């Protein structure tokens, strides 16, 4: 009887417990299944939020992996006076982190809900403030573009706008690769405002790709230093220097002065211009290699040919063409180049003929874009062959009456240096993902066309070497090395008189080192040097010499002129 009673009690107790759970279970089913849509919709509105994950813009690196441009996360800090509880505490915390709040009282802000108090604050400082969990202090993160090398390469790297879009230079050309992909990230916010990520975003997948240039930071610095000295010394209007690898066509350094400093406000937009590819100039005597190479290639001239130089004066179409160095009697072709004779060039070009000469000018890449991966390239100026008059061929033969870019000019010397092949110059060497080892795109040497045979190129290199050893380019010599090159001094057109000026000149020198097996080619242009000296031989050649000396030392190029260690 007792046993039966106890069994009944247990059954009742179990029944009660199970009933309670059953009721709870039924309620849960009701909430989970029947009220699911309604509740999840209202909860979703409260807890779900979407944020745009802005990707980090890719870095621009030099050939050795040094950072030339990068983006860092910075914060703008703002106050929301409407929800601030302890203003003095906020002021103290901000002050400890180096941020001063000007207003004394909270009421000074009036009815505003957004008061920015500090811009571009470092992430470490922002994190310190965040950790204090101050009510009414907000943070806006953004990426700021930084250029650790300062002024260096400013014309090449270019600039970005406030939204991080490239406006000039590499920043513009490679904008699509550098940008990365914005991602809309959905997050959950709990009752206390804590955020739970719905999906972990792999930053490496949304970040912009890195752009690796062919520029070598050290060579760039050498070129920039030396060029700046001369640019300032002669108070020139512009100065350009390009260093190119003749074997690949890659640009090792490119300097255009005046340039700009990223830390200073840009007052004149002209400084953004990359004169090395955008500005055209009359090359003067450096162009003579085109005349001579074309004639040698077409067998219209030989190294043994001699030319009568008309005692330094030649009348053509009512104009008198003069040689700077008066040479009496006849001289060989090589000697004519050494002494940079205009009259000899006219005679050689005449032998070649108008059509062939024009064809070779185009073949060498003039009046065409080189296709370099930089924005704003000019193709130069060249009168159509149909419109050439009696004076066009003679003047172009010594580099006047034609407009070329510095890049076109050095590319011609590069073609001669590598044995006669015109190469496409390039500055972007590789485009890789966020991880530097993961390369997506490689840019290789691209041959445009063969312009002259190896034999002609070899003869030209010899002529250029003699030009430095015995001719106008003596001041371009480099101790311990053989150098080949050509000076150039061209008259500029005076825009007032619309005639060639006797005041304004462009001095240039383009050369290669070592002379017969060149490792690099350097072009130096000084535009409108002030003072008595304006010749390529006295203004530009010494700059070449200093740059070439330092680069040869840096690249550890073996000395090839041991017999002449002294200049």
């Amino acid at each position, binding site marked *: 009887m007792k046993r039966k009673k106890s069994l009944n009690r247990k059954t009742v107790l179990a029944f009660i417990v199970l009933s309670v759970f059953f009721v709870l279970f039924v309620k849960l089913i009701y909430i989970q299944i029947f009220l699911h849509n309604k509740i999840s919709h209202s909860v979703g509105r409260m807890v779900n939020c979407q944020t745009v994950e802005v990707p980090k813009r890719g870095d621009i690196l030099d050939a050795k992996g040094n950072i030339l441009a990068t983006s860092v996360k910075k914060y703008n800090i703002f106050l929301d006076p409407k929800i601030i509880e302890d203003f003095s505490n906020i002021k103290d915390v901000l002050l400890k982190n180096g941020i001063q709040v000007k207003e004394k009282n909270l009421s000074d802000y009036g009815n505003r809900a957004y008061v920015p108090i500090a811009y571009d604050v470092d*992430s470490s400082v922002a994190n310190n403030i965040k950790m204090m969990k101050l009510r009414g202090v907000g943070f806006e993160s953004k990426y700021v573009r930084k250029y650790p090398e300062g002024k*260096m390469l400013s014309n090449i790297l270019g600039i970005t706008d406030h939204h991080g879009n490239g406006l000039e230079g590499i920043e513009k050309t490679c904008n699509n690769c550098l940008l990365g992909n914005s991602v809309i990230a959905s997050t959950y916010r709990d009752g206390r405002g804590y955020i739970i990520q719905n999906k972990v975003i792999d930053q490496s997948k949304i970040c912009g790709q890195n752009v690796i240039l062919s520029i070598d930071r050290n060579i760039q610095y050498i070129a920039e230093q030396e060029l700046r000295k001369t640019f300032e010394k002669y108070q020139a209007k512009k100065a350009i220097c390009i260093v190119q690898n003749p074997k690949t066509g890659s640009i090792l350094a490119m300097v255009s002065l005046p340039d700009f400093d990223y830390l200073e406000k840009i007052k004149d937009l002209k400084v953004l211009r990359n004169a090395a590819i955008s500005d055209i100039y009359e090359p003067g005597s450096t162009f003579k290699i085109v005349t001579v190479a074309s004639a040698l290639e077409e067998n219209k001239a030989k190294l043994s040919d001699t030319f009568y130089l008309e005692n330094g004066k030649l009348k053509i179409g009512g104009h008198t063409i003069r040689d700077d160095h008066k040479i009496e009697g006849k001289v060989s072709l090589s000697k004519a180049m050494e002494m940079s004779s205009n009259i000899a060039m006219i005679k050689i070009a005449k032998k070649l003929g108008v059509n062939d000469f024009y064809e070779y000018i185009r073949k060498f890449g003039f009046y065409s874009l080189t296709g370099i991966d930089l924005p704003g390239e000019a193709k130069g100026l060249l009168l159509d062959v149909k419109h050439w008059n009696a004076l066009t061929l003679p003047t172009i033969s010594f580099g006047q009456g034609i407009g070329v870019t510095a890049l076109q000019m050095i590319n011609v010397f590069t073609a001669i240096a590598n044995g006669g092949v015109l190469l496409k110059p390039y500055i972007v060497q590789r485009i890789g993902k966020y991880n530097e080892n993961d390369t997506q795109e490689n840019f290789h040497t691209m041959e445009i066309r063969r312009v002259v045979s190896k034999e002609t190129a070899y003869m030209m290199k010899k002529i250029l070497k003699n030009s430095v050893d015995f001719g106008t380019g003596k001041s371009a010599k480099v101790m311990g090395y053989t150098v080949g090159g050509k000076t150039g001094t061209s008259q500029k057109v005076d825009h007032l008189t619309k005639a060639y000026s006797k005041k304004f000149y462009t001095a240039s020198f383009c050369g290669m080192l070592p002379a017969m097996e060149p490792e690099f080619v350097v072009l130096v242009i000084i535009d409108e040097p002030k003072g008595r000296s304006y010749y390529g031989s006295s203004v530009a050649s010494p700059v070449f010499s200093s740059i070439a000396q330092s680069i040869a030392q840096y690249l550890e190029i073996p000395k090839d002129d041991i017999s002449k260690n002294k200049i």
Partner: protein
Amino acid sequence: MYKSFFFILLLVISFFVYLWQQSTSIRFAYKISALQSEYNNIISENDNLRLKINSMLALDKMYKIAKERNFIVADEQNTVYIE
């Protein structure tokens, strides 16, 4: 009787296991979020430090320091190469 009791008990236990798993996943979500933001902070701090290093090693700055301290490029004849 016992069979149904155990069945209901199993059902209840499963339900609590489900609840425990839900709360654990939320705890993990908090932890992952915290770690993710810490990771992002470390990356951005790393970027800042990399920038600082590169700015300090900028050639122009090095040149100015060298100039201030009267450093000169060693003459080739005075350079000894140790192999």
